[in-house]
């Protein structure tokens, strides 16, 4: 559903010169998807809203931060879930939780910005370390940082409350709304997911985003155009950390708790799997991947136990799905969709894509 739109937004190639008003530039299918998403609470129950959609939006945001780094910047960072975990922990430490001995109980307008600042600082320092490396070494160094954070949080009882972490972390009751209510929480996560989605889509064509893609394709040439490659990459890590940090805070609120396992090695790698399954070429990919992951994780257990298999084997399903995607479509579900569209538009006589100019 996203690629036709993508072509329109990027389309014609001229930056910001599409004719007509802004409402004409947004394709019909986007309106349809947007309206459906807005109307979901009218049909879905609390469990679906919170555990399926809310969780998908949150994991989608965290994967989106990886998509920004990996898809546009060519930097595969395994630290995005850790950045989210840092933000979640900081909200618990600076704000309110059931662990009153550690939580400072500061008001939300102090705790949340502070948590995001710490998350962005953490992401930037990680980026500063990681951007000097390429390819597999970036993966290794970010994985090492992620593991280090996991073990540190698990063993540190003074700040991180060790193995059990924090519980009883709730969103502030802003505007008189109880944001823990599934419908309110659905709209809260939808709002931030949509905002970060459009933000990434927008900056992909800004000088910053174009330069990031240029650096991915040819760092040497970008330096020869006057771009500071290292500074630009670190800035990308900072932007990604902001998105992941917001996702991390929402994730903490969604389950009302955070523990070392939230940012364990498993979840860290799940973020990569989500982004790859969905597709790294467009910001919609991570959200598609997250939805598939969440649906599998939620329902595969029932399906598998129904078949007499162990429920924990849902990881096997995700693993097989991952293999299939990597083998058949390195661009994820988005790549499959693009292939299908290209084939549909193919003229069998001319044997070329119908959309070719």
């Amino acid at each position: 559903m996203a690629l036709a739109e993508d072509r329109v937004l990027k389309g014609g190639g001229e930056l910001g010169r599409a004719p007509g008003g802004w409402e004409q530039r947004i394709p019909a299918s986007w309106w349809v998807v947007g309206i459906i998403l807005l109307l979901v609470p009218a049909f879905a129950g609390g469990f679906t809203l919170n555990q399926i959609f809310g969780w998908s939006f949150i994991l989608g945001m965290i994967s989106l931060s990886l998509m920004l780094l990996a898809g546009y910047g060519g930097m595969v960072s395994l630290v995005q879930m850790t950045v989210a975990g840092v933000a979640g922990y900081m909200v618990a430490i600076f704000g309110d939780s059931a662990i009153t001995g550690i939580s400072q109980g500061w008001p939300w307008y102090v705790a949340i910005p502070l948590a995001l600042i710490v998350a962005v600082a953490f992401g930037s320092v990680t980026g500063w370390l990681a951007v000097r490396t390429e390819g597999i070494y970036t993966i290794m160094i970010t994985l090492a940082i992620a593991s280090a954070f996991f073990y540190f949080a698990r063993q540190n009882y003074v700040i991180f409350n060790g193995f059990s972490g924090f519980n009883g972390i709730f969103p502030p009751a802003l505007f008189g709304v109880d944001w823990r209510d599934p419908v309110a929480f659905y709209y809260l996560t939808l709002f931030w997911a949509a905002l970060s989605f459009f933000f990434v889509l927008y900056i992909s064509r800004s000088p910053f985003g174009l330069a990031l893609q240029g650096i991915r394709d040819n760092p040497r040439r970008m330096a020869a155009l006057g771009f500071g490659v290292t500074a630009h990459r670190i800035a990308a890590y900072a932007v990604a950390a902001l998105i992941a940090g917001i996702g991390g805070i929402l994730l903490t609120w969604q389950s009302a708790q955070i523990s070392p396992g939230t940012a364990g090695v498993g979840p860290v790698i799940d973020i990569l799997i989500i982004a790859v399954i969905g597709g790294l070429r467009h910001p919609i990919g991570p959200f598609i991947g997250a939805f598939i992951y969440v649906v599998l994780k939620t329902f595969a257990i029932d399906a598998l136990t129904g078949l007499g298999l162990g429920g924990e084997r849902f990881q096997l399903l995700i693993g097989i799905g991952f293999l299939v995607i990597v083998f058949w479509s390195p661009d994820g579900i988005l790549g499959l969709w693009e292939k299908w569209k290209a084939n549909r538009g193919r003229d069998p006589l001319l044997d070329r894509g119908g959309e070719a100019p």
Partner: protein
Amino acid sequence: MNAPVPTPARGAASIAERLGSTGAESALELRGVGKRFGALEALADIDMRVKPGERRAVLGSNGAGKTTLFNCVTGDFPPSSGSIRFFGEDITTFPPQERIRRGLRRTYQISLLFAGLNVIDNIYLACCGVSRGRFSFIRPRRDDALMASAESLMRVVHMEDVKATPVAELSYGQQRQLEIAMALAGAPRFILFDEPAAGLSPTERRDLVDILTGLPGHMGFIIIEHDMDVALRVAESVTMMHNGRIFKEGKPAEIESDPEVQALYLGGGDG
């Protein structure tokens, strides 16, 4: 000289240097520049002075070290020895982007363009790189100044017809033209052209000569070129390189008639 000379703050010194640099005698000054790759001595003892606005051709057989020289000047890799001054400022240890921001530009022998982007986006990116807008998160608007300068550069190299064409679909000659447009972004003071005419048709070569001779007079350049017709028509001085060293320098006519050069180029045993 006995009294201790007060040393100005580092920033102040460099500002003074840069102010002074506008009146520098040479745009580019290389002293004893050498480059080794392990045991291979790609460049040795290169001394070269190019005046502001001067147009020089660098000739030499394959492996003479011409592109290596460019790479040292732009900082793609640093020289192993020697110093490089750009309008009086020592840029030997600067990273490439700092050299570019001071007005140095180059084109690449093998086109290094952004294949996924179209023509105007490539030029726009080049314009962003040398402006403060390079970190901007705001998409360019209709009246964007950088976009306007990108469009005027596009007209300089006559690429209006292929404005929105992805680079991957351009002809080879068009890609070379685009390289030149990108090198002209911002306010270049000195440009290094690495074989801009290679692979061009005769018509495209004529266009290239027109573009190069049409550059503003203050914009000096060095051009690496095998095609003597192109090189000698656009350049007022010639440097001949051989085996990583400077072999001859002089006016085009002198170089053309030099017996040693002719021996090297026409009867050369190791060309």
